[in-house]
């Protein structure tokens, strides 16, 4: 007997054959002894299994079992809550997943550099020398020197102390103490995306 027919005898017993094929296999079982014996053998196993399983039973109490499930649910839930569906899937999601923490880091780095630039700012006198701005510290800001437009590599920050040095100092202190920006080194003030980039 072909292996294909053996599998079809089984499928016939399981009710998985199409009507026409089912009739052919029924006929085969009728006239072929080996096919009939195989069908009886498979039927006996099938019948034995119909009695059901020996059910395994949990030893843990209801409270203990649930406490473990609940703990896992709570442990995983904040992650699933924080992931927005549109960010979680697709190419855009993958890009944004990395872009958000990297962008946050870049913004913080820029702020730190900015603060550093203000802290390391040369004396107004030096600035005047370097920038080629002539005149005393009290030069009014309303009259920028020609050096501004002619020297694109010179930043506004470099020039500003020359015009209003108090403003730079004031801004820096303001952001340190009472401004909207907290110190980037304070872990409590870090955005969630920095604390946990996976979020």
């Amino acid at each position: 007997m072909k292996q294909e027919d053996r599998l079809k005898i089984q499928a016939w017993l399981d009710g998985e054959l199409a009507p026409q094929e089912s009739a052919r296999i029924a006929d085969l079982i009728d006239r072929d002894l080996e096919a009939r014996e195989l069908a009886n053998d498979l039927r006996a196993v099938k019948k034995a299994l119909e009695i059901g399983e020996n059910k395994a039973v949990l030893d843990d109490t209801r409270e203990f079992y649930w406490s473990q499930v609940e703990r896992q649910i709570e442990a995983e839930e904040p992650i699933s809550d924080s992931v927005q569906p549109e960010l979680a899937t697709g190419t855009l999601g993958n890009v944004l997943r990395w872009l958000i923490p990297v962008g946050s880091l870049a913004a913080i780095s820029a702020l730190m550099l900015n603060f550093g630039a203000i802290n390391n700012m040369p004396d107004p006198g030096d600035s005047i020398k370097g920038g080629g701005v002539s005149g005393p510290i009290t030069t009014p800001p309303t009259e920028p020197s020609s050096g501004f437009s002619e020297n694109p590599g010179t930043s506004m920050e470099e020039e500003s102390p020359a015009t209003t040095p108090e403003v730079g100092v004031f801004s820096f202190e303001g952001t340190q103490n009472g401004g909207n920006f907290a110190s980037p080194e304070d872990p409590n003030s870090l955005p969630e995306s920095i604390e946990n980039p996976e979020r």
Partner: protein
Amino acid sequence: MPKLDIPNAEDAELVRAAQNGQMPPYEELVHRHRDKIYARAFSMLRNEEEALDISQEAWVKGWQRLKQFQHNSSFTTWMTRICINLCLDFLRKRQRQQTDSLDQMEEETGGVERRMEVEDYNPTEKMERSELRKEIDAAMEKLSYEHRTVLVLHEFERMEYKEIAKSMQCSIGTVMSRLFYARRRLAKILISLKKERQS
């Protein structure tokens, strides 16, 4: 909206309440069906600790995906499917770590089925139901995971060939072959157990 009488509520009512984010109804569902889910995990994995872990993971997944449950089947059927999928994932991972089993090799060549002779007597006749359950349980334990799984899904979960093929990520032909071989192997084991009992 009347308060839900959790201990006396039907599964569907508990599920709807849990779908709205209420945890206590879900706890009740876990309590009602944890034995069944654990038993299914154990029947597939044959290891108490692994079955416990997988059954709890199934409940966690169930909670996370509860809003996807459309009430098209019973809640226990839905949960059992989650459990079965987790068991299959687990077994696949474990299988990848092992070398190719003899069973798999034989299955590919199809040699074993051809060599197996047809048995002409019923190995389970005149046995008590509880005795037979234990015997089947012992025989199931001796099967490879692929053969045990296909038998569990077909005989106990009443899944059709195509459903099994989808769950096990294989072709219907492979399901038929595995099922055939599993039944033949199971019959052999039951016969040897019967002989041991009689001697």
